[in-house]
């Protein structure tokens, strides 16, 4: 579903690379934790997948498409295949939960009855049924992140990227959020989650891809993550 072939990424010429010769293959329906300290290249991987940035060298393939050869007009089509969730939720503060999620469908030109059907369905998926009329600031952080997940999933993309989705949440809420991602993964969606939360990674026992200074240092099924080892190096 997502393939990195010998990918190197430099943000500016002469900079030390944010990613260096990374090879990763993520299959359909996988759940992958991308782990590493801040600045290790996790977010860069995410940005390359949604073509926010283009790789300096190597190939990134998403849903069968070579991104370096994707013409500009096909970029939106790619992004419809990939839902994204961020640490800071990025909800529209003036819109209700329902409107925030419906916004995606409106932007993509969905019909009104489709929206009426899909939004409550998606709210149920993240456990927020009945809270459609709330405004974001009336919700807890965990609930806001659930809205963000619902928004990312409402048009049913085959891939879900989550960049530090639990970074602003307490441990208990974090686990709830990852549990939701796990549930989404079980319905066939490929989930890639960048995190440096050791508890979460060790609790859920998923595949772990570890980066250190832009270099892939570990790719382990049902892996663990000890942030301590990074500090020792």
């Amino acid at each position, binding site marked *: 579903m997502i393939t990195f072939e010998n990918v190197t990424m430099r943000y500016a010429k002469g900079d030390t690379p944010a990613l260096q010769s990374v090879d990763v293959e993520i299959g359909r329906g996988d759940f992958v934790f991308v782990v590493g300290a801040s600045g290790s290249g996790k977010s860069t991987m995410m940005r390359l997948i949604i073509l926010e940035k283009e790789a300096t060298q190597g190939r990134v393939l998403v849903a069968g498409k070579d991104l370096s050869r994707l013409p500009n007009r096909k970029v939106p089509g790619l*992004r*419809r295949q990939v839902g994204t969730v961020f640490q800071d939720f990025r909800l529209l503060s003036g819109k209700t939960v329902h409107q925030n999620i419906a916004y995606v469908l409106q*932007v*993509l*030109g969905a019909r009104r009855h489709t929206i009426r059907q899909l939004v409550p369905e998606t709210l149920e998926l993240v456990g927020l049924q009945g809270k459609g009329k709330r405004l974001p600031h009336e919700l807890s952080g965990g609930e806001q992140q659930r809205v963000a997940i619902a928004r990312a999933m409402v048009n049913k993309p085959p891939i879900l990227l989550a960049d530090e989705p639990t970074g602003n949440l307490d441990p208990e809420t974090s686990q709830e959020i990852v549990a939701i991602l796990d549930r989404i993964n079980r319905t066939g969606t490929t989930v890639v989650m960048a995190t440096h939360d050791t508890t979460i990674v060790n609790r859920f026992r998923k595949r772990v891809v570890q980066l250190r200074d832009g270099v892939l240092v570990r790719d382990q099924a049902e892996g663990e993550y000890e942030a301590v080892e990074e500090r020792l190096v």
Partner: protein
Amino acid sequence: MRAGFLFGEVGNGLRRNTSMFVAVVLVTMVSLFFLGSGLLAQRQVDTLKGYWYDKVQVSIFLCTPDSTDVASCAGGGVTEVQREGLTGDLDRLDGLVEEYWYESNEQAYERFREQFRNSPVLDSIPQDAIPESFRVQLADPTKYEVVASAFEGAPGVESVEDQREVVDRLFTFLNAVSLSAVGLAAAMVVCAVLLISTTIRLTAWSRRRETNIMRLVGASAFTIHTPFLVETVLATLLGAGLSIGLLWAMVQYGISGFLTDLLAGQTGMIGLIGPRDLWVITPILVGGAVLLAVVTSWLALRRHVRV
């Protein structure tokens, strides 16, 4: 993207940036007002040219008993023989002269009295001081020099006058007005372009969260750009509408109303532009407004709203 959603987005944008919207409307209004004035002045020149060039004549003023200081009038007033000689000359210029007629001293005085009926100088001018004349309608108004040289200094002729010279001075003036108006319009269009791109930058900034989400979920460039474009086109169309209103008021009350009345007493019917001329240039103004909005927005969106 559905129309309801689009107009919702446009409405949101307008609410957030009302002051900039108003600024774009006004700048567009002023620039199109100048452009329209320039075009109307040009049409006025064309209308008057057609009107006057049919009417202007070369006047050959004959000697009066008072005009002895002119060499060709040394013998005092024009004599019968001289007058007949001039008639013969005019007949010989058949190809150049469309027609001519003679205005006697009595007719000329009558016309003079009529023209200056309200002027105090009237009583101090004796009838003898008003020259009799030949009024010559040229087949080709530009061949004035040929006719003038034929009669200038001929015995019994005091002076030859081309009315076109007077009229041309008016045209020069109107052309200058037209050019300055168009020049001002050009300067205002530059203002409008800068203002529109600044507005789009500000609107893009105030809407960056929405735009970001649109990009992330895979909205097309069309979807992301259209609300901005619609807002700008609306603003410039509104500006165009207002400028057309102003121009209409100017033509209707300023020219058709005021000037026609003013001039009617002096010269009879006169060819002035009316509201119909405004309707002819309306498509240019509206088209210009839309073009301005679309081109400027497109350039600004490419710079400030990444997809």
